[in-house]
Structures are given as C-alpha cells and as structure tokens.
C-alpha cells in the first residue's frame, strides 16, 4: 500500500466523507480551529515573551509559564483535533499539497524543540527565576518557538491556496 493509497483511504472513511460533504460542520470545525489558534497563540506569545523578558516582568517566569500551561495545552488540543479532522476530510488534496508537508516538517521541528528545551527551559523555570539574568538557552528556545509557530500558521493558510494542476 502506497502512502497515496493510505491518504485516499483516509479520505474515503465515513467521518472524513461526512465532514467534507457537510455544508455547516466543515466551516464550524474550521472556525473552531481558528479560535483554538487565538487561544494557543496568545498563550505561546506571552510564555515566550516572558522568557525573553519582554512582558509580565513583575511576575516570575514560573508563575507565567506554569499559569498559562493548562490553557496552552487546551488551545493546542482544540486546534490540533480540529486540524486533523480538516486534513482527513481532504486527505488526497493534502497529499499533493507541498504546503501541507512543509507544515508537517515544522511540526517535527516543534517536537525536536520540545525534546531539546522542555526539561532545560519550560520545566526548569524555578532555576531561570533564580538566575541573575534569563539564560541564553531560554531566549533561544523562545525565539525558535515563536518562529516555528508563525511558520506553521503561514503554511497552514497557504495550504488553502494550492491548486492541483490538471
């Protein structure tokens, strides 16, 4: 079974077909995808900018990163769940869409980012608060995170602009 065949099969499943053919559920899932993005985006933005020392300097890094974490996770879960369903509903189109693969590549980099910086930065905020200045690796993590997510938003939007040439 080729990868294309798998994508075609995914698109032919009952749930993917129902979503693709519905006139209201599809845009509702898409709008929920966007709303989740607003929530997640805000949480990522403040988390990373606190690491850069640009915002909420009156609060500790632990308070900001820890306090926003549950909503960051919730926003990501909401956005990702809706996104997966949107992709499933048009899986064959996504298979041929270079922007989709660019977006997936950036998700892989997000996982690498988490492997590198999760323990040393995002789960290590007490040490960051004790340090006299915010350590360089925390600032690098924050910049990379902001760049990765902006890239993901960009490729996500571009997916909709790709046309399969006949």
């Amino acid at each position, binding site marked *: 079974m080729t990868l294309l065949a798998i994508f075609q099969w995914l698109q032919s499943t009952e749930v993917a077909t129902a979503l693709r053919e519905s006139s209201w559920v599809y*845009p509702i899932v898409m709008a929920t995808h*966007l709303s989740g993005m*607003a*929530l997640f985006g805000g949480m990522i933005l403040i988390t990373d900018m606190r690491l850069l020392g640009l915002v909420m300097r009156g609060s500790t890094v632990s308070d900001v990163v820890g306090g926003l974490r549950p909503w960051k996770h919730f926003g990501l879960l909401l956005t990702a769940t809706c996104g997966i369903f949107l992709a499933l509903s048009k899986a064959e189109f996504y298979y041929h869409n270079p922007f989709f693969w660019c977006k997936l590549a950036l998700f892989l980099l997000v996982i690498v980012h988490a492997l590198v910086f999760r323990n040393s930065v995002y789960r290590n905020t007490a040490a960051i608060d004790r340090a006299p200045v915010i350590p360089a690796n925390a600032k690098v993590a924050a910049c990379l995170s902001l760049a990765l997510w*902006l890239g993901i*938003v960009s490729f996500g*939007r571009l997916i909709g602009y790709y046309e399969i040439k006949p």
Partner: protein
Amino acid sequence: MLVYDPSTNPLNNNDWAFPLLEILHIAGFAFSIGTIAIVDLKLLGIGMRNQSSAQLLKDTMPWTLVGLAVMLMTGPLIFSSDPNMYLRNESFRFKMGALLIAILYNYTIHRKVAKSNPSGALGVVVGGVSLLLWVSVVFAGLFIAFV
C-alpha cells in the same frame, strides 16, 4: 465619475499578497484575542492564580493593542480586494457589528471590571461575554467564505 475597480488593486495582481495579509491577520488576532483571553480566564476564575486580573490586564494590554493594530491594518486591505462582495456578505456585516461591540466592550466595561479585581459572578459574566464576543468575531470571519 470615480468607480473603484478591484482588478487594479495590487493585492489582486500578486499571488502572495493576499495570503500574506491573511497570515498577518491571523497572527494579529492570535495576539489580541489570546491576550484578552488571559484576562477573561482570570475573570472566570479558571486562569492564572498568582496574578490579579488588574495586573494581567496591565501586563497584556500593550500586546493586545499591537494585535488589534495589525488586525485593523490588514483587515481593511483584505476588504479592499473585493468591497462589493464583502458588503453584500451577511457574515461580514455581522462580523463588523460584533467587532465594533467587542472593541468598545473591551475598552470600557471589560477594562473597568478587570481593573477592579472582581470576585465571583461579575467577573464570570464580564469574562464570559468577552470570550463569546471575540469567538463570534472569529466565527463570522471564517464564515464569510461559506455563506
């Protein structure tokens, strides 16, 4: 007579201009709505524990404004690509109404109440209304393409 012809708009003559504007528009609303949501969640009593809503409001306000500014610069440009379509679009008209209310609400009632560090019902109502207003703006924006 002056007639605006969208086909002369540079936006409609470049493959990348429109998606780029949309990306900035999305990033702008993530900044503004995301930061407003931080205050709303606190008002609802389910947000950050160690900061007051007044403190959160003060900390996030400049970034909310940056997001709003990006939204309000990119939005009208997107609109200029096809004004007649947008003006006839019911979802667009609803969005403009909801957006106006949401912005006015944000800088009056929402701001005043967040500054007063309310406890209980008042915070829940004011934070809940704010979230509902902004989510309705996002939904109406997306539905422009589907009505």
